[in-house]
């Protein structure tokens, strides 16, 4: 509520805490897992390469990121599927 009032009043700090919280969350996940954006990119490319053999996927909207759940870190991949490939050998 306070944030909304701040925003209506056009205060400059509206939302900067939220931005800070989100940036902090991401940076800590990456630090704790010792994972660089480069690592995630490579992983994403590899995933695309493997999954493409089995199904048609929307490579543009594919998201791979680390998420913090309770006390564990999860690798979360959101991979929109366009269609399945017919199995070649059956």
């Amino acid at each position, binding site marked *: 509520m306070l944030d909304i009032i701040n925003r209506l009043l056009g205060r*400059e*700090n509206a939302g*900067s*805490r939220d*931005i*800070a919280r989100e940036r902090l969350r*991401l*940076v800590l996940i990456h630090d704790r897992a010792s994972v660089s954006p*480069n690592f995630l990119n490579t992983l994403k490319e590899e995933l695309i390469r493997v999954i493409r053999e089995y199904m048609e996927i929307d490579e543009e909207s594919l998201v791979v990121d680390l998420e913090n759940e309770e006390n564990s870190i999860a690798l979360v991949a959101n991979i929109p599927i366009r269609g399945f490939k017919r199995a070649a050998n059956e």
Partner: protein
Amino acid sequence: MGKKTEESSVIVVTSGKGGVGKTTTVANVASALARKGYKIAVMDLDIGLKKLDLILGLENRVIYDIIQVIEGECTLKQALVKDKRFPELYMLPAAQTRNKDDIKPEQVQEICRQLRPEFDFIFIDCPAGIEQGFRNAIAAADKAIVVTNPEVSAVRDADRIIGMLESAQFQDIQLVINRLQASMVKSGDMLSIDDLLEHLCITLLGIVPEDKKVLISTNKGEPIVLNERSEAGLAFNNIANRLLGQQVDFPSFEEDSLWGKIRNLGRNLFSKE
């Protein structure tokens, strides 16, 4: 685009004490100069405790780091992160998982040797402390900026650092006083600029007032110099202009005698040389 000037300056920003605003100074002075069209590289030497990427809001763009450059895993060019807001600003990230002993002063010198032909200014963000990290950071620098706060422990550490820089043969050491609260100085509850200059005896490069807008822009990962209404942003812009050799008056935060003393100090220093 190419660089603007023939020469290039390598400037180390240091303090001894942590948390006085070294990284904020590097990020903002570098951004201010890049905005004026100078080609700038900033180098984070706080290996293991990197901050510059976050202060500049470039943390998601980091791919390689300085250790990978040194160990030959990537080229220097590949590791430089380009700042989209300032086309002339590049950052060489520190590594987060290693420590200060993983690099040597000669390796920093080699990186700077490669950067010099490409950049007008190269800023080195020095880690707190006086150990290996400090030695690495000053090894390649032509000039030093010492950042301090109007606070006894910060000034003591600044004094120690100035002594170490002098024994490392630095000729050009300038002072930035960060987080000054004019109202507290006025009411007699904060060390004044004169108090600091009297003890530290180096030329004053800038006075940055305490400004809540700094935290807000740090939250967002945006340099404060982009905020035209911020007093701190203005102060960092003034520092950039002074580094370019321009005469910029110091705002009169204090009593009238201040100006005279700064001028005298400057004269005394120059007459020694």
